[in-house]
């Protein structure tokens, strides 16, 4: 191709490209200025897990069977439960979630026979130390109340 021919084709493709980007200048902005604006997250969002309380009794639905602990691929759940004197069912003492190793796969939620855990919609998670992500879900649920 001749020298001037090359300049011509170069100029044409340059202008074509500028046309595309120029058009985008007049299109509505799609970027959301995050900390000031937020978009709604989907109801299926998988955050860290949290305990479900029974609306009628106000107790946790958890039956302390330990299936979530057993099913978890990264062993990040540990449950402590005890049977108070005279009570029929076991009660949850602590439900520790080590969120630093959790991969949010949802195996625990799916495997739960009592539907006692669900995903939270909490995604603003940041902290200064690893320890901040060792969640005690029992404590968390009580604080929320």
């Amino acid at each position, binding site marked *: 191709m001749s020298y001037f021919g090359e300049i011509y084709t170069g100029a044409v493709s340059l202008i074509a490209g500028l046309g595309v980007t120029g058009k985008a200048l007049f299109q509505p902005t799609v970027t959301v200025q995050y900390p000031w604006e937020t978009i709604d997250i989907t109801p299926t969002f998988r955050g860290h897990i949290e305990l479900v309380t029974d609306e009628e009794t106000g107790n946790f639905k958890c039956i302390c069977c330990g299936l979530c602990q057993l099913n978890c691929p990264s062993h990040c759940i540990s449950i402590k439960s005890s049977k108070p004197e005279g009570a029929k069912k076991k009660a949850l003492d602590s439900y520790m979630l080590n969120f630093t190793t959790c991969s949010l796969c*949802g195996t625990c939620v799916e495997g739960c026979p009592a539907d006692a855990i669900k995903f939270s919609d909490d995604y603003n998670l940041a902290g200064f130390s690893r320890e901040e992500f060792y969640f005690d879900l029992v404590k968390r649920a009580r604080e929320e109340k």
Partner: protein
Amino acid sequence: MKIERNLEEHSLYLNMGPQHPSTHGVLRVILKLDGEYIEEAEPVLGYIHRMHEKMGENRTYAQYLPNMGRVDYLSALSYNQCYVGAVERLTGIAPPPRAEYIRVITTELNRLSSHLLWFGAYVLDLGGFTPFLYSFDDREHILDLLESITGSRLTYCYFRFGGVSKDITDDFITGTRAFIKRLRMHLPMYETLVTKNVIFINRVKEVGIITPEAARRYGVTGPALRGSGIKYDVRKNEPYSIYPEVDFDIPVQDGCDALSRYIVRMLEMEQSMRIIEQALDKLPEGPVMAPKVPKKVKPPKGDCYFAVETARGDFGIYIVSDGTETAYRIKLRTPGFSNLSIFAEISRGTLLQDAISTMGSLDLVIPEIDR
């Protein structure tokens, strides 16, 4: 393969990576340069090696599912599909038709998102910043769609043995149709902006030549192979799931260079959209999980191989079961591993700048190579 260091020579040894932006992850390539020409290149792997295969031997079959989203995070659903396919073949669980359709729809959406990311990142490697922003805008819509049904945006864990974890909604179907319409409008824009751009063509044309013969010696698959004129796609050659029921073409280019591989991927996007549209039209009603899937999957003794076509090529899983709840051996055959192994040969004698262009055209995802 090995670079002998000879300090007497007037060669320059250059480490490209492990933090070089164009290696898309942590890949290091030792280059022996003569001026600007590459005399020898040696990729050094293992910076993000996580030993997924060993994890497979220590976890139950169901517990290994989340790993599949992390081997190749850009087309996680293809990997999900391959793993559940392999276990289903081993155990004889048959997923219901609706689940198979949903699997294909979501996997093809995932393939689109992977190609869109590759497109943006490849042009970015070559110095064009704007297309990256446009393709990420489009990709964002796919992530939103997939998030609405799978719950995650990147490392999906959506398929289960015998089905999928959640049925798709009407919103997802209308959203997908709207997205396809949108992407169809945007693809010509990409063509004007990039494919026809003179600078881009000069950077990729006749660069990184993979001859069909070399491709076979190295086991190159996927768009990299189809850019060398060989029509090989696992979806057609060894049909699985519902691919025999939908009508689509395998784009092939015989330029053997980076441009051909680029064009193959751009054409593939259109084919993926065709597959999604047909699957949405034909989507049967019914359950999304097989009725009798045991809580604890315990395949009989024996081995099995299952391959799928991911966005990067032929991905295969070889499972050996000893009849217990955990696999005795899981081998992941990743396409990127073989595709990268040809890099040393095709970059020999080329310019350093062409190496960037060649590497980008192979569409490398390092976690998938290192596993």
